[in-house]
């Protein structure tokens, strides 16, 4: 993992570097913004999904990239988001903002006790404990079908928006139109928020804890509290992402929480570059689109993905952003 004093240095960077440094994120966001105009509907919905994953990964990156905790159970928060959307849209409360708020509330409420338990441990134990919790949720969702619908899950209807009247629009138009931009705005907002968080003292503390837990403790950093904060923030981002990802599917079902999904999330993060702030977004987009192409190309796409992951882990652990990284404004 890299140590870096980049944020401080960046603040004193010249205007030219800043301009160059802003280029890549701006470009990415521009492409995503224009996407419904340049790509067909199938791809636009994929991008919709990718935005959801990007949001979830922003949180996971805080936990893994900045705090050094590898969660093999992050998918459980995506599931919580999805099921919240399911329960709420089956009532009369179909408002998107409200769904997000409720999801955040539930996600945070669940994350605090789980987090308190998990962050006492590091590395392997943290990974295994998070895996255990996510599989517990999976089993619960599967078994208690009277509450959760079991393997059939809960239907998710397209939510309504406060700022936009969606009546008369079919689902495809909504997903590639108003809701797409809503989610885009949310993505930009959450990205900016995460940037602030990581650039702030919180980010510094987390990095210090990641580098050397004992040293951080001696320096007066409350390790447990900061880890918990990171965990809960990651959970909240995960829940938000989960709501978004599940809407095009139209169904919240237990497979969302399965441990292999958590593995895929880490895969995406590594692909994009976990040491890099833009890694989550890039990783999500590349992974989703590449998987789409690959699945049509060969039935043995899992094998291909496995090989790619091996290559990344061995040769390109810092992911795609390491290849693209020119300026340092957005690197950790």
């Amino acid at each position, binding site marked *: 993992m890299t140590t870096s004093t980049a944020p401080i240095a960046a603040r004193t960077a010249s205007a030219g570097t800043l301009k160059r440094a802003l280029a890549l994120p701006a470009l990415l966001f521009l492409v995503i913004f224009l996407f419904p105009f340049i790509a067909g509907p199938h791809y636009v919905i994929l991008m919709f999904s990718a935005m959801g994953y990007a949001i979830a990964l922003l949180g996971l990156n805080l936990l893994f990239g900045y705090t050094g905790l590898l969660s093999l159970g992050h998918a459980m928060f995506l599931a919580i988001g999805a099921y919240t959307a399911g329960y709420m849209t089956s009532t009369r409360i179909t408002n998107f903002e409200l769904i997000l708020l409720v999801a955040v509330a539930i996600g945070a409420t669940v994350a605090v006790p789980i987090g308190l338990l998990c962050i006492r441990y590091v590395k392997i134990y943290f990974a295994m404990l998070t895996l255990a919790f996510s599989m517990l949720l999976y089993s619960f969702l599967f078994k208690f079908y009277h509450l959760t619908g079991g393997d059939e899950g809960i239907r998710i209807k397209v939510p309504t928006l406060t700022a936009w009247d969606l009546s008369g629009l079919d689902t495809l138009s909504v997903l590639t139109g108003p809701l797409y931009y809503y989610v885009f705005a949310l993505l930009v907002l959450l990205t900016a928020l995460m940037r602030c968080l990581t650039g702030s003292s919180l980010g510094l503390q987390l990095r210090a804890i990641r580098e050397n837990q004992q040293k951080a403790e001696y320096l007066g950093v409350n390790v447990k509290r900061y880890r918990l904060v990171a965990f809960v923030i990651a959970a909240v981002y995960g829940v938000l992402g989960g709501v978004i990802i599940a809407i095009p599917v139209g169904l919240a079902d237990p497979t969302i929480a399965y441990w292999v999904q958590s593995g895929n999330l880490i895969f995406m993060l590594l692909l994009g570059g976990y040491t890099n702030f833009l890694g989550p977004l890039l990783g999500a987009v590349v992974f989703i689109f590449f998987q*789409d192409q690959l699945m049509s190309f060969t039935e043995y796409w899992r094998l291909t993905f496995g090989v790619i992951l091996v290559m990344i882990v061995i040769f390109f652990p810092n992911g795609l952003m390491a290849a693209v990284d020119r300026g340092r404004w957005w690197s950790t």
Partner: protein
Amino acid sequence: MSAQSRRNFLKLSGGAFALGSFAGAPAFAQSPPVKIGVLAARSGVLASIGECALATVQWWADGVNKAGGILGRKVELVVEEEGNPKETAERFRKLALRDNVEMVTGLISTGSGLSVGPIAEELKTIWMSWDATTQKDVEETLPNPKYSFRSTDNEVEGLMASLLTVKHFKGKIKTVANLGTDYSYGRNMWETFMAMMKKYDMGVAPVADLWVKVGTTDLTTFVASLQQAKPDLIMSSLLFTDAFIFVKQAHAAGLTGASKLVMPAGGFQLNEMKKQYTPEGMILGHNSMYFEAPNASPLLKEFVAYYKGKTGLFPHFEADRAYSAVASWKAGVEKAAQQTSGKWPSKDEIIKAIEGISVESLGGTFSYRPDHIPDCNFYMGFTTHNNPYDIVTISPVETLNTRDYQKPAGADFFKWIQAKQFPNLS
């Protein structure tokens, strides 16, 4: 005739047929191919089921193309994988929006079905489902599907198994046990069975209610638990690998001798129901297709021979689910084309034509009701070792038609059972 020489024969005869009809029908080269999307499970628990169905569709497509295609257009299959609901929804949209397929066929899992149904309706893509139907599907998500054509209610095989149980075991059993597959289908089966036991005053009490997690490969504890409960009859909705593993382990422990067995969907695993451990006198269900049906049509015989030659295995009933879906659609296209003087009909016209249509499928006559739910034959019977194979077969084969055993559109299933006078089994 060996598989290879049969293939050659088909090629030659198909070629001759095509040549013969060359004068009348438009050649392939002039019309664009008709693309059909296939969503087949290829990994996980459903893999062997999806592979059989996919192979059937490919065989059907080959046959159709040899005979000149559909309205002169060559059939081209675009195959995607059915995975979890999210992946399946994505692949469905890809087929509909990017590949612009005329129709999508496939799907086995109910969860994916619940996700895809509304998408099919919304994208106005005809979806000919193989499976993926349970009570909930029919009641909640798509009460009036226009573009989706479902599969039969799964409960039919539960009804049939119950009726056979009543017919042969009334007064002879006092206790029953459930060894269910732990998801919605298994629950439906058990509820159906117990409702029927009650309806016919069988006077049986359940002494065990066991649920096997999907994907389990070790059932020794379940076997032991059942032995402790000592039921007269075990109703098991197991249908995956666990189905035959159960029978194998039950036999080893002496359970198959002590309790009667009923496995309504066990036919999925027919190739693994080996004589060594599968008892005679077990009620085994083969859903909509039994490879050795008493009045097997030439179509079925040809297919079974083809499949056996290609894979070394007998096909299970998902083959018929797949065949009937695509064959009905083709028949619908051709029927609608009669009104449009040979031009390719619109989706609405095709849909209207499929409603009420009747085709010859692998499992016999197959038709779609106006509510897009099919009617077909169901096969079930008592197992016997009296055959030249290493697996059990059923004899005599009880056949029923869903016309008398499947609930009508919009009806509440359990209320309907209560009131219904089921015709006697032959």
